[in-house]
């Protein structure tokens, strides 16, 4: 049935996210929070994350440009971004943030710039994937909720 095929698709998609390391188990925690009271919680949170992280990344870009040597500032900014990413389970992005942070500690400006590019890349990548996911989820409709815990 189309329904179950969509269902399966969703499940597969989600599984791949985990297998490939884009998401980690924190994402499960988020899913657990979705219920009748907050039926779209996951999507809302993810949307909020991507929006807010754009802001944070903008700050980092700005800092890299204007205060490239201010590693404390960079460290603080990336810490925020990292915390945010980890809260929704964005594993790859979080890891890149850690790499960035290490470069900050070592005061390696070049390294910071490079790793930040990676952070942005991971961000874009995850965003795309999750957008697809939610799109599919919407198609599946309320039933999709049941698939959440599956997988």
């Amino acid at each position: 049935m189309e329904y179950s095929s969509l269902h399966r698709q969703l499940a597969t998609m989600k599984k791949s996210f985990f297998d490939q390391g884009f998401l980690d188990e924190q994402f499960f925690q988020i899913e657990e929070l979705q219920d009748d009271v907050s039926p779209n919680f996951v999507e809302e949170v993810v949307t909020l994350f991507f929006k807010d992280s754009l802001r944070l990344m903008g700050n980092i870009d700005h800092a890299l440009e204007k205060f490239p040597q201010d590693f404390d500032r960079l460290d603080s900014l990336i810490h925020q971004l990292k915390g945010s990413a980890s809260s929704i389970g964005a594993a790859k992005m979080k890891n890149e943030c850690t790499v960035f942070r290490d470069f900050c500690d070592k005061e390696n400006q070049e390294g910071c710039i490079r790793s930040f590019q990676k952070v942005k890349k991971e961000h874009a990548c995850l965003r795309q994937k999750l957008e697809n996911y939610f799109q599919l989820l919407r198609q599946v409709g309320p039933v999709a909720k049941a698939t959440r815990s599956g997988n």
Partner: protein
Amino acid sequence: MLDSGGAAAAAPAEFPAGLRVLLVDDDPTCLMILDRMLRKCLYHVTTCSRAAAALKILREKKGCFDLVLSDVYMPDMDGFKLLEHIGLEMDLPVIMMSSDDHKDVVMKGVTHGACDYIIKPVRMESLKNIWQHVVRKKRNGSKELENSGSLEDNDRQRGGVDEGDNASSACAGSWKSVKRKKEEVKDDDEDDDDEEALEEHEDPSHSKKPRVVWSVDLHQKFVNAVNQLGVDKAVPKKILELMSVVGLTRENVASHLQKYRLYLRRVSMPQHQGRLDSHFASGHDASYDPVSLIDGFDVPGLAVVSQIPPQGRAAIHPGPRSNMNVGISASSVNQFGLIASGIQIANASNMVSSSAQQMNNKRMSNPQTPSNNIQLSQFGQTPSAVQPYGSMNLQFGKGMPNFLTSSSQPSSFSLPSGTMSGQMNVSLTMHQAQHLHQFSLSQQRSNINIPHSSGQVLNNNASHSSRLSSALTLQTSSNESSNHILGQLRVSTSITSLPANYIKSPFSTSRRDLYVDGQSSFVNGLSGSSYPSASGVGVSQQTASFQSFSSNHDLKGKFDNVTAFNTISEHQNRGHEWKLQRVNLPYQTGHIFGLEQSNLLSHSSLMSHHNSAATATNRDNNTGATVKDKITSLTNDINVEKRTSVAQHRNVYIDDNSVRLNYGVSPDMSYQDVYLDDMQNELMSVVAKQVTFEYIYDDYLA
């Protein structure tokens, strides 16, 4: 039991459901997730993305929360500072969160008094059990009472649990119920001149029992009773009998006694304490880690404090910070100096940091040495030297008194005979300038320890007292937190010699009525004489309040000096624009009136202090708005209190030479200017705020 006000949602019938949590996190994603998680746990959640807003909410709705969950890294205020503030002002359990799991950061959380530290990303499991901290805190509060010999542990806990149940209701609901109770209580006590109306505070973390307002009279009785029995031997039951006050329960007395003991202990701490923790109520600070000195403040003296293990202290101050050696070693500082220094310390975190820095560093390595005092002496001696606020919450442990005495001054600090055990939290959280807030917080907590020194001062002639008072004032100001105590300090001196300076600073912090009276009264105990409560008229004028101290020659060890603290704190406040004066309202005066013997309510000074601090804060901090609000609320509170107190007390204004609300800046207090240091101001403001809250400190209530 569910609040009759009703909860918006179906109120869960069992604790911990309905636990009222305040969530503070600047990251919107985290905030949303945590909010949801907490709601899933059936907790009642209020969210904030700014620490300042959180404090504001907490202050306005004291008693509406059971627990605070806060992020560590926030843009407007360091989470640790917030932690301190909360600890000092509201004594709520606080759980810190961060994705930073480095040991030193976690340690910092612990030393600043966090109940727990959760690593992000947060999982549901971590949140499910946070209610345990609420219960634990209440239990510890109860236990403290028990130690003092009286406590109905069950009541407390039940009360606590009940509160928890009630938590499901909106604050409004609970406030309503509280108010109702209050009215009932008031009716009963209308005729009771001795006691202030029993107010029921809506303090979820405490039992629902009506809160006793420890008026000057009441506290005086208490102190008399304690003295009669012997400070060490006094047990609540006997005290209660001796006091023979209608409506007072053994529990009330027990908790008050506990606070008093802490106060005494604090007072006996060396002047360094700067943090006037006159705040008697450091009681609940039992868990207060003396070590949690403000970072940067390395209070070597603390080492002496029984509570702070040297290494602990060291731990508290990670390397760079340790420069504040504030206080504890104040002993070397002459009493006055100490006080002043204490204040200074409290006030000028900045100041201290620089000077303390070196001292601290030295100290750290040698915690026990009286050299600590040295530092203080630098500060102490001259009011101007006011020690940086640094947040020295020196908690004097029993051992501490020595500090004071060891000071060069013949300070007659007679440390209370070991009553202060435990509570002397030397919360020397001396923060570097940037941690002013913290400092103030800790200070508050730690109760202005100046008492000790103030006691001494009192013994001296009046002139001393004035100095003392000023010192105290300074202290007070610095110890915003200590203001608690100050407010309460009633310098009981035979005050004959007391100059009119005793300022009966009205307790601007109306909330703290309790404190005002009770706390300061501790001081009374000793001599039984009327203590000139240097009510430190709040804010600006600290000077006056201390005067009363001089009369307290009896203060041997008794901390009438506590009052002095008030003064000091007030003084401190003065440095900033304390406009608290208005805050200091007459309320205090009212209290004072009640005093039979010109007891100056030092609290008033504290009160004013608070107020001023608040004001100061305003000035300095962006939290000014908050402060203003506070002041306003305080003012209102005070007004209310005033009315109440005045009604209750005859307008017995202490003899002119004793209490006089003197809001003006006394010449002695010139050193207040010292505090004008920016940091100080900030600190002060923070402290002030805290102090204010301190008054209202609920912990005082059993």
